[in-house]
């Protein structure tokens, strides 16, 4: 039976010690059961391997190169062309199909393993970034809480001096004196005993008050005018003082600055943190604290009022009064707008009040009317 002869030739190469340099490109053909390689260039050399002695291998840079080797490995003929493997198998009467299939399977498994590790590595990198990011944030939050209160005070006073506000009332003004007296009465019961509370009355028609980090408290004349009793003002002040003693300001700053604050804390740049914190405080504290912070300030405020023998009910009353007035309060700058969810808050304060020590509340002996008339 006549052996088939390949109709085509292929471009490939050959390794053999007799070739100068050990290798050469070659034109390959398959004839009479042999794989034949004619080297390119002058003089051309001919090498051949009987197909039935061909040790087949698959690989190379592309992973698609077919190698045919003699048993002793001294001669290798290789080719990357698409049809070469098929032709080789056809010419060998199907004898090379099984080993080729096996090799392809091995390469596919290898490729899958590579893809698997690639995916795992990508996932690990993402996880590391994720953990790293939140780890840094958590560390920063902890570190910020460990900062001395003096940092709060610096941020507060810097923010205060940089804020645009109406005319500040003189400390001797009846309204200033009234507010100061309430603060003095509440101060001994503050959670941070040596915090220097500083209260300022500012000429502004809005019914508003806010606390800056470190105990800077601002009360608008609008709020004093609208109050029905000195106790209601005390309620607002206790709430605002609680924001300061609970350090909500600096918490807010650390949330806003996030990773920046974390880096500043880590490199020990407290000065930079204060400057940035003051900016954040100016812009964000007026836009309200988180809901959890507000509830906390309500309850702590109620505790302070109770300890100062002022009825915490006044704080709830003030909320209720504002709620009723909401209809004709178009502006967003009112205290109520930065202190939302008032219904649940009134309820919360009243519930909390029941848990506080039962004491005889004393009315505040302050002349609210005189203060209001002086405005």
């Amino acid at each position, binding site marked *: 039976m006549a052996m088939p002869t390949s109709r085509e030739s292929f*471009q490939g*190469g050959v*390794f053999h010690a007799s070739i100068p*340099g*050990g*290798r*050469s*490109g*070659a034109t390959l053909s398959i004839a009479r059961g042999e794989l034949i390689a004619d*080297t*390119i*260039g002058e003089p051309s050399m001919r090498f051949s391997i009987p197909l039935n002695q061909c040790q087949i291998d698959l*690989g*190379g*840079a*592309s*992973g698609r*190169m077919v*190698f045919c080797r003699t048993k002793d*490995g001294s001669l*290798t003929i*290789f080719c*990357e062309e698409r049809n070469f493997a098929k032709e080789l198998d056809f010419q060998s009467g199907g004898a090379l199909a099984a080993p080729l299939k096996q090799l392809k399977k091995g390469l596919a498994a290898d490729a899958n393993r*590579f893809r698997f590790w*690639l995916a795992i590595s990508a996932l690990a990198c993402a996880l590391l970034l994720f953990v790293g990011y939140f780890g840094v944030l958590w560390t920063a939050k902890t570190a910020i809480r460990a900062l001395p209160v003096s940092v709060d005070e610096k941020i507060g006073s810097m923010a205060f001096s940089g804020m645009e506000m109406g005319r500040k009332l003189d400390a001797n003004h009846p309204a200033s004196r009234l507010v100061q007296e309430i603060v003095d009465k509440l101060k001994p019961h503050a959670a941070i005993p040596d915090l220097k509370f500083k209260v300022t009355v500012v000429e502004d028609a809005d019914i508003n008050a806010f606390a800056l980090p470190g105990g800077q408290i601002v009360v608008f004349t609008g709020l004093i005018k609208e109050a029905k009793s000195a106790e209601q003002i005390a309620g607002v002040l206790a709430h605002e003082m609680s924001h300061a003693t609970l350090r909500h300001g600096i918490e807010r700053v650390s949330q806003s600055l996030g990773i920046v604050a974390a880096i500043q804390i880590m490199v020990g740049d407290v000065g930079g943190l204060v400057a940035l914190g003051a900016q954040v405080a100016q812009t964000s504290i007026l836009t309200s604290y988180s809901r959890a912070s507000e509830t906390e300030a309500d309850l702590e405020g109620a505790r302070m009022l109770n300890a100062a023998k002022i009825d915490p009910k006044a704080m709830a009353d003030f909320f209720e009064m504002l709620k009723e007035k909401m209809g004709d309060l178009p502006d967003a700058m009112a205290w109520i707008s930065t202190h939302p969810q008032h219904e649940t808050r009134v309820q919360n304060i009243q519930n909390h009040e029941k848990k506080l020590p039962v004491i005889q509340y004393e009315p505040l002996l302050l002349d609210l009317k005189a203060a209001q008339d002086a405005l």
Partner: protein
Amino acid sequence: MQVDIRNRPSFANLRVQFQPGDRIIAEAGAMATMSSNIEMKTRFNGGFFGGIARRFLGNESIFVNEFSASSPGELVLTQPFPGDMICTELKGNTLFLQPGAFIACEPGVRMSLGLAGLRSWIAGEGLFRLKLSGNGRLWFGAYGAIFDREITGEHIVDSGHLVAYEPTISINVAMAGGIFTSFFSGEGLVTRVRGQGKIYMQSRSFDGLAAWTNSHLM
């Protein structure tokens, strides 16, 4: 055409001595000095788009220079980093070069840029590679010394040290040791080459230079 590699191994450069009719193709920036009678023609390195791709993807020039002479003359070619150069002759076979390693070749050598693959990239051997095939001599350079090795089977090369390899060689990424050793030994990933054929390695790597420079910048 007589070509010598001089000042080996640290500051190797090529001296090309032309006889009438000789031609050589060189990387665009490689010419250091030449006789006034040598003619220099700049052309796209493997076509316009191929050239652009090579520039952006493979860090090779868009252009190559073709030098020719109608009377005897001399040309000196250099590479931008200190290191050795090597000459190899293609006889219908192919060689893959790391981008940036190519210096010069004879006109019978064809150049094209190909994707080297994700594995090569992860191994620090570049996402692309220059494919040189055809007939003729070829010169390429390396950072530091160059040494070659005939591979049969498997061999490990530190990442960034592989300069050239034959298409009969497959490139794989591997970890130097276990995950732990790889992370803490500073060896990290290595290149695992497999197959039959020649590989060329450089004794230094650009990553190593970058790390060394960074450590002295602080």
